[in-house]
């Protein structure tokens, strides 16, 4: 990463982007993938974050702007090969199995897909996305189509972990909620800390791939609960309740993971 970019990054995101983050992006870039993607243009915003340089200049451009991007970023070690991890992720229909805010992803063609996110009270946000870059067993980048209601750019990178410990995946997704109702729903879905949500998602992915199922205590027996605690749980915005479908999801996930 160039020194200029580093400074950009620092200034732009302040406390969000620390040295470690710059380092992580550095690692992605030296992976070579992003350089290959080339600069892509975003008609509405001129944003091109599918490139590393793009993200940086984007971050720079956003500094001082009213609208805040929501950045979800995390990584996790998976006890499988990069090929297996890539295979699972590259089927975008699999993502709702572990990304709790996603209700579905359906394919619209070879590179296009429709994403439905679901938030508190069953409010939905829908957007179409396309694959921006795809290199087998190494990296996948996607972005929402220019005329979508929200902007989403995501990238996942698969790397061999040292000493045959499996695969380290690093994921960054940048959301730009529009002003108004849809933006509000999206912000509620992602919560105060989108990276926290991503961490939970990746942990579910890890359990799914390694253990074949996602650990749960939903639906187990218990004695009489206090109504206060039950109320608090309903109100907790960081833990959107998606409904009853947990077991089917998990059963499906298991089938697909194996």
């Amino acid at each position, binding site marked *: 990463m160039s020194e200029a970019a580093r400074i950009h990054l620092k200034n732009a995101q302040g406390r969000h982007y620390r040295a470690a983050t710059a380092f992580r992006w550095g690692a992605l870039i030296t992976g070579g993938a992003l350089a290959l993607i080339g600069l892509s243009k975003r008609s509405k915003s001129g944003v091109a974050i599918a490139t590393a340089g793009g993200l940086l200049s984007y971050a720079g451009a956003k500094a001082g702007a009213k609208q805040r991007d929501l950045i979800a970023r995390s990584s996790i070690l998976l006890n499988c090969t990069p090929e297996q991890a890539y295979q699972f992720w590259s089927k975008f229909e699999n993502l709702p199995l572990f990304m709790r805010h996603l209700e579905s992803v359906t394919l619209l063609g070879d590179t296009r897909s429709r994403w439905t996110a679901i938030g508190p009270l069953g409010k939905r946000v829908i957007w179409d996305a396309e694959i921006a870059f795809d290199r087998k067993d190494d990296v996948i980048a996607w972005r929402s189509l220019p005329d979508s209601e929200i902007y989403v750019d995501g990238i996942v990178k698969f790397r061999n972990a040292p000493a045959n410990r499996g695969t380290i995946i690093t994921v960054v997704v940048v959301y730009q909620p529009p002003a108004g109702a849809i933006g509000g729903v999206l912000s509620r879905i992602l919560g105060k800390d989108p990276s926290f949500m991503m*961490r939970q998602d990746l942990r579910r992915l890890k359990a799914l791939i390694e253990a074949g199922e996602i*650990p749960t205590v939903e639906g187990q027996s218990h004695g009489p609960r206090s109504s206060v605690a039950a109320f608090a749980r309903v109100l907790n915005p960081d833990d959107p309740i998606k409904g009853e479908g947990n077991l089917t999801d998990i059963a499906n996930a298991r089938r697909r993971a194996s």
Partner: protein
Amino acid sequence: MKAVCWMGTEKMTVENVPDPKILNPRDAIVRITSTCICGSDLHLYNGLMPTMEQGDIMGHEFMGEVVEIGAGVDREKLKVGDRVVVPFTIACGRCFFCQQQLWSCCDNSNPNYWIAEKLMGYSPSGLFGYTHMLGGYAGGQAQYARVPFADVGPLRIPAGIPDEQVVFLSDIFPTGYMGAENCNIQPGDTVAIWGCGPVGQFAIRSAFLLGAERVIAIDRFDYRLQLAEQAGAEIINYEEVDDVVQLLKDMTGNIGPDACMDAVGMEAHYSGPMWAIDRTKQVLKMQPDRPGVLRQAIMACRKGGTVSVPGVYGGFIDKMPMGAYVNKGLTMKTGQTHMMRYMKPLLELIQGGKIDPSFVVSHRVPIDKAPEMYKVFRDKKDHCTKVVLDPWADGVRVAA
């Protein structure tokens, strides 16, 4: 079914709750034949562990018969009808930690990983009946339990061995054994063990099995010290001596014990100004732990020795004698027990007649008596060492 529920600090009740269901493909349902109250449960009874919720089902030391298995359970490992002991740690068997035999550190068994992560940096494995921070799993002080990853944990027990001899493979026997193994015992070693509760009792016997020359056991209840003495330990009643650390020095030619074990944990009793400070902080919920024994163990341990801590702690502690720890070059080993590493070899010890774990049982009662037995066990009344509950004692199946 009947289940012992945590309804608040010092409030346990036996409730009628729905029978457990299979929730995940690798689950099994076990019909419980014997289940126990553990010293760890007392930390919950006393309200010292954060993230309990009213209605939580207690218990993590149980055995029984498999009555149902999920579609994902490996049939080679477990089938309906098997008689099993269920370990208190829940482990997936396939993550990095499970493969390193660090079973109680499994990465994939705590659905509430993030809560523990906040407190400890990373989460250990999920546990039965032991706070939402550690999974929120319904426990086994009940007539039935749901057992996740059932092809990893449960150990099959052949017919003919009574429950009482094997049920402690679910926790305290392996825990005492790992505590002793963590002492890094060399021929001729002296091991000092604080706490002669069930964990301490198994630790004493395991230390001898692992070749310790001397074991010095410390407690204040004579009936527990007597059990320790029966196993060959020298004993100290700490309430009858001025200074335990000095006495340990005197007993070892001023060298100190080669290893010191804290088998007491966060609810140690002691006196003096530090007691007042630690107890006050605990009451004010500023510090969940009273680390008096840990401090003593560090002070007493010989230079270059090992401090083993099977006793449970919940959070941060003050006045840790770090100077002593560093300057004496000590090693500390800790952990919830890596159950699956020990269950089978220890079963073989039992089968070979090397040890009969039922020596520790002092009370056998129907599950309906659990609430009062919590108090008896906590207050060490009625010579209580270990309580085994029979979930079916009155023979009546309670429909929910």
